């Protein structure tokens, strides 16, 4: 919703995750669950019906013992900006029939309105990152454990889709605080707004902030190129995005010093490399 804070600069919150540092400890996953009242079941071994807004993938370089190498890759929602030229034309946002998921142009966050979602799951079909999860079951907390639920995020009911919100409630709390202090916008020096996973990560592998802010670390690492055919493509040769070639234009970036890891971020044919591949013609 546009509330008319016209003095505020448009922000584009994004994340860069250093895969060299990530040890796959899973703290980001649990921090996210605890922060966002993510429900849990007695059987979570089927990862295809396990609600994990943040999921740490583990994959290898496909080589045989002993040349095998492994990479851990935390996957939140990518908060895709969508095909270039359509700000907010994210794969999921564009397909939701009931406007239950929305692209906030002020923050670049893809939100999910649980009370409006009627569970058609079209957005899940649209998302190639499996970042969206459906509440196949009623959320049930063991007796007493619902005391640990945070009032900042409403628990979701059965039959709706949920996903990572970049801890949007924290953004709102931070903004409230900023207004309460009489400021109009984020002070660049005060990074009040962090996601729970960023905060919890014991390796400091996650850097979260405004990609539009040249003074922020996230911008300095990513060096997003907004004039590139693939909007926001990183100018840092070690930085890549998942499935960049699909033009989903994610705001979650990954950093790795290993070539095979960067290559695993997208699909390439034959001679193609992450540095050199065909892109689509510009047409609008």
């Amino acid at each position: 919703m546009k509330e008319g804070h016209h003095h505020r600069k448009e922000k584009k919150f994004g994340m860069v995750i250093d895969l060299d540092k990530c040890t796959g400890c899973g703290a980001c996953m649990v921090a996210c669950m605890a922060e966002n009242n993510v429900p849990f079941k007695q059987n979570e071994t089927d990862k295809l019906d396990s609600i994990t807004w943040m999921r740490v993938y583990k994959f290898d370089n496909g080589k045989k013992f002993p040349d095998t190498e492994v990479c851990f890759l935390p996957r939140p929602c990518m908060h895709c900006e969508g095909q270039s030229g359509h700000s907010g034309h994210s794969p999921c946002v564009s397909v939701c029939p009931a406007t239950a998921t929305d692209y906030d142009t002020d923050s670049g966050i893809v939100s999910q309105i649980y009370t409006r979602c009627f569970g058609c799951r079209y957005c899940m079909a649209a998302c190639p990152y499996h970042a969206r999860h459906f509440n196949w079951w009623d959320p049930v907390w063991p007796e007493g454990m619902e005391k640990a639920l945070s009032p900042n995020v409403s628990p979701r009911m059965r039959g709706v889709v949920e996903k990572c919100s970049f801890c949007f409630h924290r953004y709102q709390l931070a903004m409230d605080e900023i207004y309460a202090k009489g400021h109009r916008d984020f002070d660049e020096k005060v990074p009040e707004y962090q996601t729970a996973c960023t905060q919890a990560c014991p390796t400091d592998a996650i850097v979260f902030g405004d990609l539009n802010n040249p003074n922020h670390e996230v911008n300095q690492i990513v060096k997003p190129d907004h004039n590139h055919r693939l909007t926001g493509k990183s100018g840092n040769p070690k930085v890549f995005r998942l499935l960049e070639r699909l033009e989903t234009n994610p705001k979650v970036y990954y950093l790795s010093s290993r070539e095979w890891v960067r290559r695993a971020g997208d699909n390439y044919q034959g001679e193609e490399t992450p540095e050199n591949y065909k892109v689509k013609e510009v047409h609008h």
Partner: protein
Amino acid sequence: MDSVLFPKGVKRCSLPMFLLGLIPVVLVLLWGVYAMLLCWIKGLNQTNMNDSYGFALWIWADLAVIAIGGGAFFSGLLKYVFGKDELKNIINYAVLIGFICYSSALLILAIDVGQPLRSWFIFWHANVHSMLTEVAFCLSCYFAVLTIEYIPLILENRKLNEIPFIHNMSHNMHGAMAVFAATGAFLSCFHQGSLGGVPGVLYGRPYAYREAILVWPWTFFLYTWSAAACGPCFTILVTKMTEVITRKKLVKDKVIHLLAEISGWMILTYIIAKIIDTIYWAQVTAPLMGFHWTEFFDSARSSLTYHGQWILYLEIIGCGIIPALILITKKGRQNTGALWFAVAMATLGVCINRWTMVMQPMAMPVMTFDSWNLYLPSWQEWATTILPVAYGIILIAISYRYLPIFPQESELNPSD
């Protein structure tokens, strides 16, 4: 017992016989209703769908029944807009089949969504950029049209028609039918198309994604075309099946052959377009997304896997080119066996097309570290998908028994 309700000049079996015949169908229906209630009360955990397979059997069933229900709009279009008056002898049945298909689709959708009570949000909070919104709008509008087209048939029941109000109503509805049918054809073109748009716009899913013209991806046009082409085949197929079951000729061959020929040419042109689309998709669209088209199929072990390449060949050749060639040749369509085969394969073809467009994109790994997903529907999913079939049979049986569906029936089966 109930013979006063029968259409004029036709013979029907006795009521007990009729009811007896319906028993197995009703049992299947009840099984489906039970599964449906399970899904509503206990939730969608009753299915084998999962977060990777958010769209599955039901969405396929929706797409498929609407495609094969396309006979209603296309024959309506031919009759009311292009003036193929002969089709009036099959249009009633086409409308009935369409009505069944569309109501089934709506029912399945109502089971498929996680919060059925909120379904109206699709209208209330409509996102005009979503293909599903377009589908919902056109679908419900067209369903209204089909209902309007079906109502006069009911009103024409011998007994009902004796009531002047109903008689007049039926008469007036017939009078206005061309307007409704034209609107319906327009709506139908759109929603068949937007159903094609549903997978076609998924640019995160390389299998489904197609380049677009204006806002509509290629699949938009292919779906409309294929529904127009194969829908009448299903109408013919069901007509033929009805003839077998009732052991009566109900529609003149001339009518069937006319529809079959039009269908044949439609299928031929469609399949050419589909082949061009497939080649473009494999050679241009896929490589730009980083894929080789063979990666779209799970052919790691053999091409005969659940998601293997065989399905593509079956769809295009077995269920496209072959039926088209049969139907466009006079000899082919006039041979009963060949006609049966062709309309059955064409129907199967459009169902396979919808199947691959729903299942393959969900099953296929897009991220390099993903893997193929195998999904087999749960019995609840099967039961609720078969439910409409049972419902359709019942509705057809009742309609056939009491309503003048086939104008040529009495002529073709002169009562002794």
